[in-house]
């Protein structure tokens, strides 16, 4: 049995994205799931598999009951926040390919824009591993990734201009996408370089948005996909990655902290693919922070170690460049919904319906959060 092209994403759906949406997370989840099923032309009663994130607060029981799903024979949750996005699709693909289920829905609903701000109150609970970091004021994900970023810049001579190249590519694509939070907000180098610090060396524009919104997608078998109204987007390869001796996002205790989960996921991903990084037409790379992109470019094999910064030069990440990324604006400029918008944008690219379409795109890499245990997908429309 092989996963390769055995299943396809045939439906995508989303709610509007905004800093504040009135509806609660469960309602947003229902809307996204129903929109994805409508897009797939599949009735809710046919769904027999669900997958989401461990941090998803809409319980699968409540979702299934609310939107009228059928009898479920498979449900799973993937851990580690933004590292779980692609794993939800991978779990459904495996379930369908192995006969555990026939119609799967993955989703993420999140109200980070209007939700609690844990870094401004004193009642936050410390998870036990935080005993080694948080008493010293290394409090937020931004601080933890800034620490890796400083070492990365030092080790390889990468610069803030390289991080700006990432922020700019995402913002330029958002400026083409009416659904993006930053649709009408162009970014300049001067704005970037003079913006306030969040955690030096990361500034405001190195950090993702805080967004309310929900997204979903629908998976079926390759055979079933032929009967659906949209171009099938095949799951060509899928992988999760939790490296040996990894430690959460505070990845300073590996022998080699600058080779993170992307390297582990990539080895499996490419081993089971018929194409190579050179054949990837467009990529949706998890961008909770700009510096995760050069790390991922290295991890997934688009360049050598330490070359992720220089890879971003000369418009390489823009439309028409070597590797257009995050063509809906990504987490930095479209919406931050734990990376699920990257999956749906990968599908739009391979349907030919992106607002920043890469001409004749046939292959797309989608990745989940780097720095945490992660996951990734290779998608293709080649039948």
């Amino acid at each position, binding site marked *: 049995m092989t996963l390769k092209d055995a299943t396809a994403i045939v439906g995508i759906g989303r709610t509007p994205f905004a800093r504040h949406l009135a509806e609660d997370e469960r309602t947003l989840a229902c809307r996204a799931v129903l929109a994805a099923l409508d897009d797939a032309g599949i009735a809710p009663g046919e769904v027999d598999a669900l997958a989401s994130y461990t941090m998803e607060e809409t319980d699968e029981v409540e979702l299934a009951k609310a939107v009228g799903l059928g009898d479920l024979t498979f449900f799973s949750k993937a851990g580690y926040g933004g590292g779980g996005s692609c794993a939800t699709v991978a779990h459904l693909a495996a379930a369908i390919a192995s006969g555990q289920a026939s119609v799967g829905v993955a989703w993420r609903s999140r109200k980070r824009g209007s939700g609690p701000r844990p870094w401004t109150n004193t009642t936050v609970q410390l998870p036990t591993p935080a005993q*080694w970091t948080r008493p*010293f004021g290394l409090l*937020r994900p*931004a601080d933890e990734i800034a620490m890796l970023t400083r070492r990365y810049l030092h080790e390889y001579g990468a610069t803030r201009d390289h991080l700006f190249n990432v922020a700019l590519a995402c913002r330029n694509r958002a400026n083409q996408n009416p659904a993006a939070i930053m649709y009408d907000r162009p970014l300049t180098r001067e704005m970037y370089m003079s913006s306030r*610090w969040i955690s030096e060396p990361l500034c405001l524009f190195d950090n993702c948005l805080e967004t309310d919104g929900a997204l979903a997608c629908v998976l079926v078998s390759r055979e079933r996909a032929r009967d659906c109204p949209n171009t099938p987007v095949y799951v060509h390869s899928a992988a999760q990655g939790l490296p040996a001796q990894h430690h959460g996002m505070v990845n300073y205790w590996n022998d080699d902290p600058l080779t993170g989960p992307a390297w582990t996921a990539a080895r499996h991903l490419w081993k089971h693919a018929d194409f190579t990084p050179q054949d990837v037409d467009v990529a949706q790379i998890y961008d909770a922070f700009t510096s995760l992109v050069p790390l991922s470019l290295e991890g997934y094999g688009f360049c050598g170690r330490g070359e992720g910064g220089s890879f971003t030069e000369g418009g390489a990440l823009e439309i028409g460049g070597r590797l257009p990324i995050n063509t809906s604006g990504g987490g930095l400029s479209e919406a931050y919904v734990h990376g699920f918008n990257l999956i749906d944008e990968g599908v739009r690219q391979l349907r030919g319906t992106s607002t920043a379409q890469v001409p004749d795109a046939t292959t797309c890499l989608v990745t989940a959060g780097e720095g945490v245990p992660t996951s990734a997908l290779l998608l293709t429309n080649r039948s």
Partner: protein
Amino acid sequence: MLEPVKDTTGAPFWEYAARGELRVQACADCGELRFPPRPCCPHCQSFAEEWRPVSGRGRVWSYVVPHPPLLPDYAAQAPYNVVVVELEEAPRIRLVGNLVTVAGAPLNSLDPGRIRIGARVHVVFADGLPQWVLS
């Protein structure tokens, strides 16, 4: 300020720190140091452990300077530094901490402009927490 939320495995680190000693967990069979503390040795799978004193000398591996929004006690000191120190005798043992001017000084007591990756530092203690000063 946040107190360390100790677990059984990590408690000895904090007990030694309260006595002004920096000790790191080591395998009592194969001798490999490990951090953060864990129940058994990832090299030889032994559950026998010991807590080995280390020199307290190290180098700055990386550092950040957080700015608000932060928890109130930290926001009051921002911008401050957080460093990762690699130990001189075991460079792959890296400890998160703060670089201060003298033991017990606030997190923002040292000008961040004076911090460099590779700078030599040594450990001091204040209120049961290890801190670091430039050597």
